[in-house]
Every structure is written in C-alpha cells, then in structure tokens.
C-alpha cells in the first residue's frame, strides 16, 4: 500500500483507492467536484513520486511535465508526496549585466545558481533584499545559458522597476525564488506550426521559448509577432532579424498599433493580426505573453481561428504599480 505524504503527514492508501478517496477517508478534504477526471478541480502536484499516466488524462503537456495530476482518478502505484503548490528555496545571486534594450526596458542578467533548473519561458520571483519587495519576471534566457536573463520595463510609480532602473548595479546582490509558470515548450510534434505572440516585455519568455524550440530541432514553421504601441517600444529587433535570416523556419513580424511600420512588420490591433496573416490556426501550438486583456483576446481569437484549447499556452503579465 503506497503512502501519501501531504503537508507534513503520511496517509496510507488502500488497494484500488484513489488519492482523493484516501484523503477524504482520513478527514482531509481536498478541493474536488466531478470525481471523474473531467473538471480538474482536484488538480494537484506530485513533489515526489510519479503519478500514473492515466491520472494525467486531459491535462496540458506543460502540467504533465511538472507532475501535476488529478487526485480523483489517481490510484497511486508508489509512495508519493503531494502538494497544492511547489516549495522553492531562495537563491541569492549577483547581477552580472545591466543593459538598456530600448528607452523603457532594461536587460538584467543574474548569475545562475548551480542547483537551479527551469524551462525556457517560465518566470521567477525577484526580491529586493532590503525589504523583500517581490515581483514576478519571465526568464528570457535558456537553461543552457550560465546566466538568468530578465527584461524589466519601467512602470510609472513601479517600486521594483524604478529601483532596478535607478539604483540596482552590476555586482549588487538580489534574491529570487521559483521557477513557476506553464508557458513553455514541451518536446514532441516537431513538425507542428508554432505561433508566438507577445506585447512589450512579453517578448522575454518568447525569446527564451524561441531559442529552446530552435535548439531542440523543431522542424515546423515558427512565427513570432512582437507588438508595441509604436516602433520605440520594440526591442531585440536586430537579434530576431538575424535569427530569421539564418533559420528558414522562423519568421519575425514586428507589429505596431500606430506610426511607422518596421520592415516586414504590420500595423493594427495585435489581437487580430496573427489570424489575419496566417488564416486558420488549426493544428498550431500557440504561446501568448504580455498585457492580460490582449493575451485574453488573443487566446479567444486563436481558439476561434482553430487552435485547440490544449495547444494554447499563455502567461498574462500583471503589473502592480501601487501595491507592495
């Protein structure tokens, strides 16, 4: 009989019993609803042990990759430690580089701790050591890089971003914990066409995902749309054009809402541009990052244009200028 470890206690799971039934029998009520593997209310993560594949039916590939499973249909085959959230240690690291990418975005590179692993496209929580002020930033680097790269936009009245812009210097120490996030590339289906759409610093996780995709030998077409209000808001333009020149699978489409249109770019509402240009998105895998209302609009439009719900991954950024 497998033992289930949850929040400091051990529970013995009977033969042919699901984890949800086991916990309920012991008086521990996990959130649940349909009890048939459909509604995903009982979604939980195995921190140790491997969930049986059938307990991950219908979950997105990114959740499967992180050992999430459905407690209501999970009959464990081995001891497992389960939890509603992941616990991650804090790392204290030095800033190794600080470079402006455009007038309002700075690139910050942090030394990567040896015991830290992540997937390109995930985010970390950066802390200001003096007072533990914490903000989430997506990683633009690749797990192979020996640094962690963040793209930080100066937010009006933003406590963290203004501190990063005005006070943080190379060789200063910062603290971070993580990683988290479900917006990343899972190897498999290398011929699948990919659509990457980001607004503003939503480019950061996409830049990481793009390099990951190319490193892993993806053979299908990859389209990256980077949107900004106008040309000065775009960044890494030259790097992306260089990748596009070298790699025939990859297309870079800079988009602006108004003003001059960059070479090979588009003008208009970014929520409409990808489906207008590409037509049907049936069969596409889609990654959407940035401003929440635009990400939500893109999610719906990508779905209506034919992309399957299971193939749409998104990371809506939340900006918090006045709290914390």
């Amino acid at each position, binding site marked *: 009989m497998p033992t289930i470890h949850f929040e400091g206690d051990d529970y013995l799971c009977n033969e042919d019993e699901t984890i949800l039934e086991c916990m309920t029998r012991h008086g521990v009520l996990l959130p649940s609803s349909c009890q048939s593997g459909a509604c995903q209310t009982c979604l939980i993560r195995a921190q140790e042990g491997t969930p049986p594949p059938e307990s991950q039916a219908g979950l997105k590939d990114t959740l499967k990759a992180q050992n999430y499973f459905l407690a209501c249909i999970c009959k464990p085959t081995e001891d497992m430690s389960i939890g509603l959230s992941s616990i991650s240690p804090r790392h204290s690291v030095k800033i190794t580089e600080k470079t402006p990418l455009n007038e309002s975005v700075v690139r910050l590179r942090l030394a990567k701790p040896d015991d830290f692993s992540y997937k390109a496209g995930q985010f970390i929580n950066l802390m200001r050591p003096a007072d533990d002020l914490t903000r989430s930033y997506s990683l633009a680097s690749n797990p192979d890089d020996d640094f962690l790269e963040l793209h930080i936009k100066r937010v009006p009245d933003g406590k963290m971003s203004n501190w990063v812009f005005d006070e943080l210097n190379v060789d200063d120490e910062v603290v971070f914990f993580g990683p988290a996030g479900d917006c990343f590339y899972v190897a498999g289906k290398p011929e699948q066409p990919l659509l990457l759409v980001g607004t503003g610093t939503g480019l950061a996780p996409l830049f990481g995902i793009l390099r990951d995709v190319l490193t892993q030998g993806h053979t299908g077409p990859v389209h990256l749309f980077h949107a900004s209000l106008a040309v000065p808001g775009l960044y890494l333009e030259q790097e992306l054009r260089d990748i596009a020149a070298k790699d025939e699978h990859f297309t870079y489409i800079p988009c602006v809402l108004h003003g001059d249109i960059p070479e090979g770019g588009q003008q208009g509402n970014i929520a409409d541009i990808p489906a207008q240009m590409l037509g049907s998105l049936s069969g596409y895998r889609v990654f959407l990052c940035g401003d929440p209302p635009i990400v939500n609009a893109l*999610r719906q439009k990508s779905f*209506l244009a034919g992309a399957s719900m299971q193939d749409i991954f998104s990371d809506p950024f939340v900006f918090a200028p006045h709290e914390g």
Partner: protein
Amino acid sequence: MSTVYEQLGGEAAIEAAVDVFYRKVLADHYVNRFFEGVDMEKQAAKQKGFLTMVTGGPNNYTGKDMREGHKHLVKMGLNDAHVDHILCHLRSTLAELGVAQDLIDTVISVAESTRDDVLDR
C-alpha cells in the same frame, strides 16, 4: 448497452468535442456575452464535465451544481431561448463527430432535463 460516451471513444473524444462545441458557442453572438471575461480553461473543463454527463460517462454532476453555476447568468437575462441555442450547438457538435441521430436525441433529452436547474426555476 454501451453509452454514447463509450461509443464516441471516452475521455479523449469528449476532449475533442469540447473544442468543437465551445468554438460554436463563442462564435454565436446571441449567447457569447454570457462567456465574456470567463477563464477559458476553467470553462472548457466545466463543459467537459457537462458533455461527459450528457453522454452518460462517469460523473457526479448534480442539479444543484447546475443551479448554482448559472444563477449569476439568470440575473444577466439567461432564458429558454439561450438554452435552445446551446442545445443546437450540442446537436451540431455531435452530428459533426458522426454520432447517429437516435443517440443525439438521447443526449439532448439528458441535456434538456437540466433546463429548469440551469434557469433556476
């Protein structure tokens, strides 16, 4: 006798059906205002539960869930005409997936049985 759920091919088929069904619903301007601002993934999971239930698959769906889950929509004006639209989309979805007419009728009669709960009366 096997259920429509089994005949369709179980969980994976329902997953595919949700994509077809939800897309039809969101494209329908008569009903899509009720879906504005909802988390698409949570909504898709609920629809998966609903389709599993109406096709006779394993479920623990209750009338109370249906009533509680739609109360705020009834306040927004949800009525029989909207339910009719949803049932139409369900019919077309099943037809698109090649389900026979008599089985579609069975599924629709199960879905129809939730109407009073959905409309909170």
